[in-house]
């Protein structure tokens, strides 16, 4: 049945009401479900990690050791000249951990044959960007290793 002035029939109106109601109900169920499932645990990175000088002296030149920076695996390199450099150990391609190859003085990622030089620059293979570098500050006998962005913003530094 449709009134002369009406745009839709009574049946059309009620059908719309039912479908609209069901759609609203669906949205009311889907919203909390999605919020529940997409909850992300916040795990901020520390502002810095500290290493004792004595520990650093045990590292031979032209070699690297791994260390933990919050949830992030990192790698500390002592160059042939004794200079210290620290990077995120996660390859910028697909997040595998890189390893240092003393003979070629490169960081190598075994997952897809990616290479980074001693300064963390991506030089061969698929990695699209350099390894994120840490800054190293020395205070007396303690080294403070930190990512410039860590502890300040919520966004991940790598």
């Amino acid at each position: 049945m449709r009134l002369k002035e009406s745009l839709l029939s009574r049946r059309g109106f009620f059908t719309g009401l039912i479908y609209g109601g069901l759609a609203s109900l669906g949205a009311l169920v889907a919203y909390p479900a999605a919020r529940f499932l997409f909850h992300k645990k916040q795990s901020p990175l520390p502002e810095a990690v500290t290493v004792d000088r004595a520990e650093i002296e045990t590292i031979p030149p032209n070699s690297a050791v791994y260390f933990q920076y919050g949830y992030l695996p990192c790698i500390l390199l002592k160059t042939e000249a004794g200079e210290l450099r620290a990077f995120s150990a996660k390859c910028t391609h697909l997040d595998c951990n890189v390893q240092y190859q003393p003979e070629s003085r490169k960081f190598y990622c075994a997952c897809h044959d990616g290479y980074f030089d001693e300064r963390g620059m991506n030089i061969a293979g698929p990695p699209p960007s350099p390894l994120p570098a840490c800054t190293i500050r020395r205070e007396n006998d303690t080294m403070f290793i930190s990512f410039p962005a860590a502890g300040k913003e919520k966004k991940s530094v790598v």
Partner: protein
Amino acid sequence: MIDLVKALDERIKLGWMISLARRKLVPVHRHSVWYYMGALLLFLFAIQAVTGAMLLFYYKPAAETARQSIAEIMVVVPYGWLVRSVHHWASNLMIVLAFVHFFSTLLVKAYRRPRELTWLTGMLLLLLVLFFGYSGYTLPYDERAFFAFNVGTDMAGAVPVAGTYVMEFLRGGDTVGTDTLNRFFAIHVGVLPLGLLAVIVAHVILVQLHGMSVPISVLKKAEAEKREIPGKPMFPHFLWHDAVNCLLLFGGLVTLATLIPSELGPEIDLLKPAPVGVKPDWFFLWVYQILKWMPTYVLSIEGEVAGIVGLIIAALVILFVPFFDRRAQRDERSPLFTALGWLSVMAFVVCSIIGYFS
């Protein structure tokens, strides 16, 4: 829309299924209301499967982490309180409706020939649902769960012959601990869902094969009046009723979950005495009360053992009632079994109420 229906019809014979559902008539009489329980139970099972899978995203089943992970679900994860409370209340409603379904089919004697297997699978479903409820409330591993673990597995140990093995199997060791929790977790999320699903499929297929059972009184009355029992097509009429019922149930469920969210008890302290007034969940209160009434010894048998054996015998009688109730099998009135049916309803309700207030 029409194209989609046509395409589906070509591929999965949708039209054939719909015409089958249209041809299937659901008898309409004064006891028809009990036909709605099955669909509601299926709906609740679906809700449990979905909310249960969601809770698995955050629940950590080990003695050290279980309670803490549930606390996090309740206060940290967005809408975690809602998901857990819906799971909690849906389980309670499922047990209520399973009992209503069970007692109503018992009283209208829907177990008559040729529906004995439907009855047996239904009884198995009731048992599985109860075990679901029990295993579920041990998973928070709080104080209440700890005593439920102890009492429940200990009771299993009182069953003659196999008891000790069952108890050790359930505990996964000499005492209740993280191994027990892991076993109950495996049972709750792995064994029971698969088992329940398989038996549900069998039960529903059997119901479709035989159609709805009509109570003897309705048959007799129609016979006396020489008329057919009227029927309504399953599709769309009954499915439409089912859909509305499910919607109402869903509304009630979410309201309960919002107004009375499920709780989390204190942490387990192995050296603390059982809290005064500790009781099982409501669906085991009748068992609790009956066991409480048992004297220390019955004819030189330990009271607890005698009580459990008695309950098992009563359950077996109900389980095999289609084979005892010969008159009903011939579609004749069987007042003795009607009386026994009402007696079991009364025993369940009265013992539960006394158990609650004792």
